[in-house]
């Protein structure tokens, strides 16, 4: 029983740890996609956020300033994407691909100059995002240890669930959210009702960059301790996948990210105990996602105007 609780605790902990960065980015992706702009550049924005967060935290010593700057760095690349796609009517896939090259390229170049290496200097405990609830639970009892295993994790992990709730509220309970969703479905109709589609989309793409940046910063400032070129490998694409999986709804994206995080947790636990090949175990999250898609989810509704540049007509 104790062993089981321990294992379960580790697994849930791993689930939370893996889910957090994906969920930040996925919520970001929701903003952009639902407003009608395909943002395949999430990966590049995450990398920029991961780097900026670590560097600022390293030099200021304040993890929260770093975390915020990670978001802002992501937002900067989000703005680049917005300028190209929303203002200038660029092809959204091409611009996003460019962001995926520019983001890592620029930050690693800066890293080479600042640190003389592609890796950043490691953060110490005070510069990392703090853990919450350490010492709150009594680790002498089995249940206390379980709770400690699960909940003594980084503050950024809890924050993301609040953000998810906030995003859901914005999307479905505010006027802004209604307008945002309308922009992705029928921009011309929005314009006739006096909504500034261009401004809405611009803002949404910037927000998507900001949240992606936070997601990236969460990887390097909480899960690991330094920025490395392979810190962000594919999480951005997984986040996009989670959004499509969740049928372009924040609550759906949450489920997608949790499923993915849970499978990653499963991988960690199985990898420790069973003799199964690690490479095969690593496939679990991806295989399970496909299976769940085939069995339960099926076709997803893409916002009608998604991917189409909006040109204001006179």
């Amino acid at each position: 029983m104790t062993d089981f609780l321990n294992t379960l605790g580790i697994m849930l902990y791993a689930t939370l740890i893996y889910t957090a960065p994906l969920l930040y980015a996925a919520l970001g992706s929701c903003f952009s996609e639902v407003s009608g702009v395909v943002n395949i550049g999430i990966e590049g924005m995450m990398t920029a956020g991961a780097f900026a967060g670590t560097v600022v935290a390293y030099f200021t010593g304040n993890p929260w300033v770093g975390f915020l700057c990670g978001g802002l760095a992501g937002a900067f690349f989000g703005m680049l994407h917005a300028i190209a796609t929303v203002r200038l009517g660029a092809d959204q896939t091409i611009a996003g691909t460019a962001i995926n090259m520019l983001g890592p390229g620029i930050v690693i170049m800066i890293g080479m100059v600042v640190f003389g290496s592609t890796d950043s200097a490691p953060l110490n405990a005070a510069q990392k995002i703090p853990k919450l609830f350490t010492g709150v639970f009594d680790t002498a009892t089995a249940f206390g240890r379980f709770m400690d295993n699960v909940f003594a994790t980084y503050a950024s992990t809890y924050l993301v669930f609040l953000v998810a709730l906030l995003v859901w509220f914005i999307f479905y309970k505010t006027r802004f959210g209604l307008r945002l969703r309308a922009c992705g479905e029928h921009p011309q109709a929005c314009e006739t009702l006096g909504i500034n589609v261009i401004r809405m989309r611009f803002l949404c793409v910037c927000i998507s960059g900001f949240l992606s940046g936070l997601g990236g910063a969460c990887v390097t400032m909480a899960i690991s301790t330094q920025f490395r070129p392979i810190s962000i490998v594919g999480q951005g694409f997984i986040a996009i996948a989670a959004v499509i999986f969740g049928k372009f709804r924040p609550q759906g994206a949450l489920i997608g990210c949790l499923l993915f995080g849970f499978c990653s947790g499963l991988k960690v636990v199985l990898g420790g105990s069973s003799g199964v090949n690690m490479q095969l175990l690593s496939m679990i999250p991806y295989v399970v996602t496909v299976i769940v898609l085939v069995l339960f989810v099926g076709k997803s509704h893409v916002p009608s105007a998604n991917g189409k540049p909006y040109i204001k007509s006179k």
Partner: protein
Amino acid sequence: MTKKKGLLDFLSENKFIHILLSVVLGFLVGAIFLVAMGLPVGAAYGKLIDSVTSVSGFSNVIVYGVPYIVAGLSVAFSFKTGVFNIGAEGQFVMGSIAAAVVGILCGGLPKWILIPLCFLAAMAAGAIWGCIVALLKTQRGINEVLSMIMFNWIAFYLSNFIAGLPGIKNTGSTEATQNISDNAMLQLSKEFTKAHGLANTSNWGILVAIFVMLLVWFIIEKTTLGYELKAVGSNKYAAEYGGINVNRSIFVSLAISGALAGLAGALLLMGRGKRVSIFSAQEGYGFAGIVVALIGCSNPFGVFVAGLFYGALMFGGSKLTLVKSAAGKSIPSQLTSVIIGTVVFFISISVIFRYIKYLKIRRHKPDAASAAKG
């Protein structure tokens, strides 16, 4: 309405000028970054140009460029047919490992059987990877971008798994497969490369790339199949109305695109790599293929040039770290990512000329309407 051809029309109609302009801007932005970081621009670009213009340098550019060209052709083919093959990465990896397995296990076969066999294995593996995604889409309506991202990673781990199997894995401590049989390698003879001052990895791969380029052009432009695929790519509903089986078209498109990406993986292995490593992160040849296809405007000949351009920057970029600034700092090879990223960024925006023109036309319409009324 007769209108004088202005600068705008010229820019909006000439793709070549767009791309050239984007490339110039890419190098300009790269230079700005170098200056901002206090690194010598002249020395960096000098090294870049030097390392790719010598005979051995240019032969290296070709060697580096071949997998990019073929991966680019794979993505370009999918673009033409209305599918965004973001799964080229996984298909590439599957092609590479399939060719490696054949090249290791059937190493005793003579060259003229083994090489085509490796190619076939790679193309089959890539095509299967593409077909799975197509089936999921056509049978279950699953978004292809989503399943491709998943299958990229499944391919990645599957390749790592296969590379680590006994009988395939290197007996030494290296985390990689054994070297494939020399009979599976496309390399030119050592005497020949030495006599002509070529890079010692020079190989026949470029001929395959040229053949694939012509083949893709032929399929798209000269065959009924290509016509159908293109029709689906430009308007799915119209194509369906016209009696084209859209599901079949998506299937065929991804099968061909996947086979080409798999072939690109085999060309990397049999031309330069010699073995498949157990990687910790995706290598990104498939994603590079997307970039190459975009720079080449999905035109087979354009993609060929773009692939060489990409290969040149990758090879030149790997030599950049040799250049030191006055302060002793070396030039980061990521400079090339910044340059290529900027090029692609401006290629995406260059569409702007077309839209400005479109706006101008739209603006004329209401006037015409009110004039008609009056």
